[in-house]
C-alpha cells in the first residue's frame, strides 16, 4: 500500500500539472477596488474578488481559488447557483445616485440568500435548502439557520439565474431573508477567509472591521454560478464583493479619539463674509467634495501590495481605480503606476508587488464634478395607520424620467402574522402637477403572483408586475391585519417589534438587458405584545404562593388522622362498617384537636 502510494505520487503530480496546463485559462483570480467620492464627503469603495474553477476540478473536489468549505457545501446541497448578501444601512439614492453594480450585488437589510437547487421535487429541494442554510449559517456565523419555511419563498419572476445551467437539471429557486440580522465583524472574518489572499495582501488587506462597520452603508455579497463559454467549457465562478459608503470625516478620526467633540474655535470653517462673523460667532460652511483624504486615513491601514495569486497579466492588471476628475491631483506611493482613462474621470493604478501602496488626495477646489446618473426609479415602503389590530402598507414609486415609463417587478414577502387584504390594493397616481387621481389597481398592475400565507407555516408571497408612467408617482396601498401570537412565539429577549423583509424591485431594462435591482428598507411591525414582565411575574408569584399555601392548608383541613384499624372501618361500605365509621367520627369529635386538626 505504502509502496503503491509512493509510486503513484509522481504520477498524481504529473497529472495535476497536466490538468492545470489545460485549465489554466479558466482558473484564474482577479481583484479590483473602485473608489468613487460621492457628494457630502462620502466615499464609495467597491471591492470585487472574482475567481474561476473549471467544472471538472470542481466536480473532482479539486479546489484552488474556490474555497473548499463553500464548494463542499454546494455539492452536498446540490446547489448550482448561490447568492448570499449581507447588508446594513440605507443607500441614499437622492445624494449618491444609482446603486453600485445596478443593485445586483446587494441585498436587503440583514441577510438575504437565494439559490437554485437541483432536486427532483419541491420537498427534496426544500430539504436541501435547509441543509444549505444550516451549513452556511455555520460557515458565515450568521443566523441563517432561522430561514425556515415561514421565511422561504419561491419567487416566480423576480429572479433569474445569472449562470448558464444545463437543461438536465431540475432547478428550484428558493429565497430567504433575515431582515433583523445584524451584520458585523463575525460575518466579515469568514468572508475574508474565503478569499485566496485571506485579507493579508492585495486590496482585501484594506478591509478592517472597524471601518467597514462604521460605514453609512455596506453590502457584502457572495455569488457562485456556473459560466459556460459558447464552446461548452464550463467554469464555476465565485465572485465576492464588498461595497461600502464611508463618511470621509468620520473615517478620518483616529481610533484613539473617535468622539466627534466640538472642534477648537480656531479650527471652525466659517463663512467669513457674514457681517456678524467674529471670534465667537460663526456661520459654518457646508461640506465640500474637495476635502483631503488618503487610503491610509480612510481605511485605517495601508494596502499591502498585490495579492500574488491574482492574475497580473492581461487586462486586469489595474487593481485600484479612482473616479475623480483628471484635473485633481493624486499622490501615490512609489512603484505604482497611474493610468488615466479617456472618460476624464477614471484613473487606475498598477501596483508594485509586495510594496505597500497608499493614495492621497490633497485638498483642491475642482470645478468639474463626476456626473451622477439619475436613478431609474425611487421606491419607498412604509407602514401607515396606528393601533394594535390593523395597519396599512404604503408603497411609493416615483419615476423621475420625463420620457419613458418604467416596467418592473415588485416582490415582497410578508411574515404570516401580517395578513394583507389584497382586495384593498389601491393605486393613486400623481403627476408633476401634484394632482393625484385614484385609479383601479389593474391599470398599474399588469400581473399578480400571489401566494397567501398559512399560519405558522409559510409567509405571504406577492409579486406584482407594474408599470409607472413617465414623470409620475404611483402610490400603492393595502390594508393588513396583525395576528395575535401565542405567548411562546414572542422572542424571549427585548424586542422593538417584528422585522418585515425589504421588498425587492427588479427593473427590466430593455436597453442593457441586465436587470436593475432596488431594495426598500425593512419595516418594523409592532404586534400587540402583552406586558410580559409585570403581569407574568405577578401571576406566577401569586400562583406559586397560593398553590403552596392552599395545598398545605387544604391538606391539614381535610385530612383525618386515624389509626390503621379505624381506617379500614372508615373505608367499609357495609352497614356495620358505616356504623363503625360513624362511631369513629363521633370519637374524633369528642377527642377534639388531638387527632383532627381544624
Amino acid at each position, binding site marked *: 500500500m505504502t509502496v503503491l502510494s509512493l509510486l503513484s505520487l509522481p504520477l498524481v503530480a504529473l497529472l495535476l500539472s497536466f490538468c492545470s496546463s489545460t485549465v489554466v485559462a479558466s482558473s484564474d483570480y482577479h481583484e479590483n477596488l473602485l473608489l468613487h467620492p460621492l457628494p457630502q464627503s462620502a466615499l464609495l469603495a467597491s471591492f470585487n474578488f472574482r475567481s474561476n474553477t473549471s467544472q471538472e476540478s470542481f466536480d473532482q473536489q479539486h479546489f484552488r481559488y474556490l474555497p473548499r468549505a463553500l464548494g463542499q457545501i454546494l455539492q452536498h446541497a446540490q446547489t448550482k447557483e448561490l447568492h448570499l448578501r449581507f447588508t446594513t444601512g440605507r443607500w441614499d439614492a437622492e445624494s449618491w445616485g444609482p446603486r453600485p453594480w445596478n443593485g445586483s450585488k446587494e441585498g436587503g437589510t440583514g441577510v438575504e440568500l437565494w439559490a437554485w437547487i437541483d432536486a427532483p421535487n419541491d420537498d427534496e429541494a426544500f430539504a436541501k435548502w435547509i441543509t444549505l442554510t444550516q451549513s452556511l449559517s455555520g460557515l458565515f456565523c450568521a443566523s441563517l439557520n432561522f430561514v425556515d419555511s415561514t421565511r422561504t419563498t419561491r419567487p416566480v419572476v423576480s429572479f433569474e439565474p445569472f449562470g448558464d445551467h444545463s437543461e438536465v437539471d431540475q432547478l428550484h429557486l428558493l429565497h430567504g431573508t433575515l431582515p433583523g440580522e445584524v451584520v458585523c465583524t463575525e460575518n466579515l472574518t469568514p468572508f475574508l477567509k474565503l478569499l485566496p489572499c485571506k485579507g493579508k495582501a492585495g486590496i482585501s488587506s484594506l478591509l478592517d472591521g472597524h471601518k467597514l462597520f462604521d460605514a453609512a452603508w455596506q453590502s457584502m455579497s457572495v455569488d457562485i454560478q456556473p459560466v459556460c463559454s459558447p464552446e461548452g467549457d464550463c467554469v464555476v465562478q465565485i465572485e465576492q464583493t464588498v461595497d461600502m459608503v464611508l463618511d470621509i470625516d468620520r473615517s478620518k478620526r483616529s481610533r484613539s479619539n473617535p468622539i466627534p467633540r*466640538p472642534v477648537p*474655535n480656531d479650527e471652525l470653517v466659517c463663512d467669513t463674509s457674514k457681517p456678524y462673523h467674529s471670534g465667537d*460667532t*460663526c456661520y459654518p460652511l457646508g461640506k465640500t467634495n474637495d476635502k483631503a483624504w488618503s487610503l491610509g486615513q480612510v481605511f485605517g491601514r495601508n494596502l499591502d501590495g498585490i495579492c500574488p495569486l491574482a492574475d497580473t497579466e492581461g487586462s486586469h492588471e489595474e487593481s485600484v481605480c479612482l473616479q475623480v476628475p483628471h484635473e485633481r491631483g493624486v499622490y501615490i506611493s512609489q512603484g505604482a503606476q497611474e493610468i488615466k482613462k479617456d472618460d476624464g474621470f477614471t484613473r487606475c493604478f498598477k501596483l508594485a508587488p509586495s510594496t505597500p501602496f497608499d493614495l492621497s488626495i490633497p485638498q483642491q477646489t475642482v470645478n468639474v464634478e463626476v456626473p451622477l446618473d439619475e436613478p431609474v426609479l425611487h421606491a419607498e415602503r*412604509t*407602514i401607515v395607520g396606528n393601533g394594535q389590530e390593523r395597519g396599512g402598507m404604503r408603497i411609493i414609486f416615483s419615476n423621475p424620467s420625463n420620457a419613458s415609463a418604467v416596467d418592473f417587478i415588485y416582490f415582497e414577502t410578508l411574515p404570516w402574522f401580517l395578513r394583507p387584504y389584497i382586495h384593498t390594493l389601491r393605486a393613486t397616481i400623481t403627476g408633476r402637477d401634484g394632482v393625484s387621481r385614484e385609479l383601479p389597481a389593474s391599470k398599474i398592475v399588469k400581473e399578480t403572483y400571489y401566494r397567501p400565507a398559512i399560519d405558522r407555516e409559510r409567509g405571504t408571497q406577492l409579486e406584482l408586475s407594474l408599470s409607472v408612467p413617465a414623470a409620475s408617482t404611483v402610490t400603492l396601498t393595502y390594508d393588513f391585519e396583525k395576528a395575535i401570537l401565542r405567548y411562546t412565539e414572542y422572542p424571549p429577549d427585548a424586542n422593538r417589534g417584528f422585522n418585515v423583509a425589504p421588498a425587492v424591485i427588479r427593473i427590466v431594462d430593455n436597453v442593457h438587458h441586465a436587470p436593475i435591482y432596488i431594495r426598500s*428598507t425593512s419595516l418594523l411591525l409592532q404586534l400587540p405584545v402583552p406586558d410580559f414582565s409585570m403581569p407574568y411575574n405577578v401571576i406566577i408569584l401569586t400562583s406559586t404562593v397560593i398553590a403552596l399555601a392552599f395545598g398545605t392548608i387544604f391538606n391539614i383541613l381535610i385530612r383525618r388522622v386515624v389509626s390503621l384499624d379505624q381506617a379500614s372501618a372508615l373505608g367499609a361500605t357495609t352497614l356495620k362498617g358505616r356504623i363503625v365509621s360513624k362511631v369513629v367520627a363521633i370519637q374524633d369529635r369528642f377527642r377534639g384537636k388531638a387527632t383532627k386538626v381544624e
Partner: protein
Amino acid sequence: MALKSAIRNLRSNPHLLFVRLPKLLSLLCIVVGVAWLLLLPLNEYSRRTYISENALLPGQVHAYFTGSEQNIFRGYKKELQAILNDETKDKSEVTAGVSDKVQSIFEEAGLKFARQNYEYNSAGNTHEGENSYAIIHAPRGDATEAIVLVAPWLTADDKLNLNGVTLALTLARYFKRWSLWSKDIIFLITPDSKTGTQAWIDAYHDMHPASVQPLPLKSGALQGALVIEYPLEHRFQTLHIVYDGVNGQLPNLDLFNTAVSIAGGQMGIGANLQEMWNHDDSYEHRLQTMVRGMTKQGLGYATGAHSSFMPYHIDAITLQTKGEGWEDEMALGRTIESLCRSLNNLLEHLHQSFFFYLLMQSNRFVSIGTYLPSAMLLAGNFTIMAIALWMRTGYYPESKPVQSKGEKASAEKAKTSNIAERKLALPLSLVVGLHLLGLVPLWVFNNISHQYFTTITYVVLGVDIILPLSLAAILSNGLGLSKPLIPQQYHLIKSFSLLLLGLSLSTLATLNFSLSFIIGLLCTPLSFMARLQGPAPARLATSGLGLILLNLLSPPTVLLGVCWYTNVSVETVLTEAAFGWDVWGMWTQVVVWCVWWPAWLIGGVLLGSSIF
C-alpha cells in the same frame, strides 16, 4: 353575632334597607373618595420615582455639546434674526424666508429636508401653517425607528421660540457627526405649538384630514419625542417639564423620570412641573401640584406641542426654560443630547413603568392602583343609589312603612305587598331621550362660529332653568296626554340616570381619572335628589332653594364661574374646546354634554317635580 342581628334587623325593616342605608352608603363613598384623594400626597401613600427601564441609563454618558458649537449657535441665531427683523418684508415673506433658511441650514448639515402645509378650520377660525422637518438617517440604521425633536416657532404661551429653533438647528448639525445613533432623528420645526405637530403626526400615520398635506419623507416607528422651548433672551434657571397629553393621556413615567434625572442629576439644572416654582415638598405643595395636574388632565386639552404625540402611543414631553439664572442654551442642548442618547439606547418601545400616575413633585408619584379607588368610590356612590332604587321600586311599597301591629301582620303584609310591577317605558324613554338631547349642545358648541359662544352659553343657562321645570310640570300633570307619574316612576327615572352616570364615570376613571373625579364630585348632589313630599309651603320653599343651588352646579354655570374665577373669557375657553374637538380629538365635551348634562337635567326634573 352582632353582625347577624344587624342584618336580620335590616331585613325586617325595609325602610332602613331601601331608603336610609343607600343614602348613608353613598355619602360614605363620597366622603371616603374625597378623603382618599387628600391622603395621596402623604409619604405613606405616594412613592419615590425610579427608572424602570434599565436600557435608558439616564445621565450615564458624557454630553459633549459645548465649546465651538456655541459659536455656530450664535451664527445660526444671527442668521434667523436678520430675516425675522427685516422690516421691509411683510409677514408671509418673512415666513417663507425663514423656512428657506432653515432648509438651507439643514441641507448643508447633510439632512434630508421636507415641508408640509396644513390648514385647519375650527369655530370660524382658520389655522394654517407650514411644517419643516429634516431627518438624520441613523448611520447604520434601516429606517425602522426614530426619535423626534420638535422646536415650535411659537411656544405654548405664544412667545417666539428663537433660541429653541436655533438650538434644534445646531443640534442637528452636531448630531449628524455622531455614528452611534441606532434610530433616525427627526427635527421638526412647527409654526406653533397647537396645530403643527398635530398635522405632522397625523400625516405621519396617514390619518390626516384632506386639508393637511401628506408627508413626502418618512422614517420608521416613532419611539419618543422631545419639545424644546427656550423663548427667553437671557440665561435660565430651571427646566419646566410639561407632560400632559390630549384627553389626559400621559407619557411613560420613565421618560419624565429620565428628563428629571438628567436635568437634575447630570446637568445640575432643577426640574419643575405644573408651574410650581417654589416646591418645598410640603403636604400643601404636593397637593397643589397634584390638583393642578388633575385639572389639566381633566380638561384634556393639549398643553404643548408634545400633547399631539400621545394619542399615537408616542411618549413625549416638553422642556421649557424658566426663570433667570445662569444656565445657557448649551446646558439645554446638553440635556437634550443626553436625553436623546438615553432614548437611543432603548431596545423596545417604552413600556415599563407607568402610563397612569399622578405626580406631586418631580420625584414623587402615585400610581393608578393607589389613586383609582377615590374616583371609583365617587362613581360607585351613584351605582349604589341606582341599584338601591331599582330594588326599592320592585320590592318596597311606596307607602310609609306600616307601624307594626304585631309581627305576624306585618310579615304577612310584607309578603303580599313586596312585589310591585315596574312601569319602565316612560322612565326609560325619558332618560334615553335626555341623553340624546345632549348631542344638541355638543353639536352646537363644536360647529358654530366663535363669536356666538358667549350668547349660546347664556342660552343653555336659560334652558337649564326652564327645561327641568317644564319637564317636571308635564310629567307631574300629564297634560292630559298620559296619567301623572306615580312615585315609582320617579324612582326609576333616577335609578336609570344614576346607573348610567355611575357606569360612565367608573369606565372613564380608568381612562381619564381626573375628569371622572371632577365630574363625579360635581354630580354628587344628584345622588340625593328626589321628589320631595310634605306640606306645600315647606316643600315649595325647599325645592325652590334646592333648584337654585342645583343650578349653581349646572355645566354652563360651572363654566361661567370658573371663567370668572380664572379671569378668562368664556369665548376663549369654548373656542379652545371646539378647536380641541376639531383638531386634537378631545373628548371632554362628550363627557360634559352626554354624561354630566343629562344626569344634571334629570336631577333638576326630580327636584322640580316637587313644586307641581
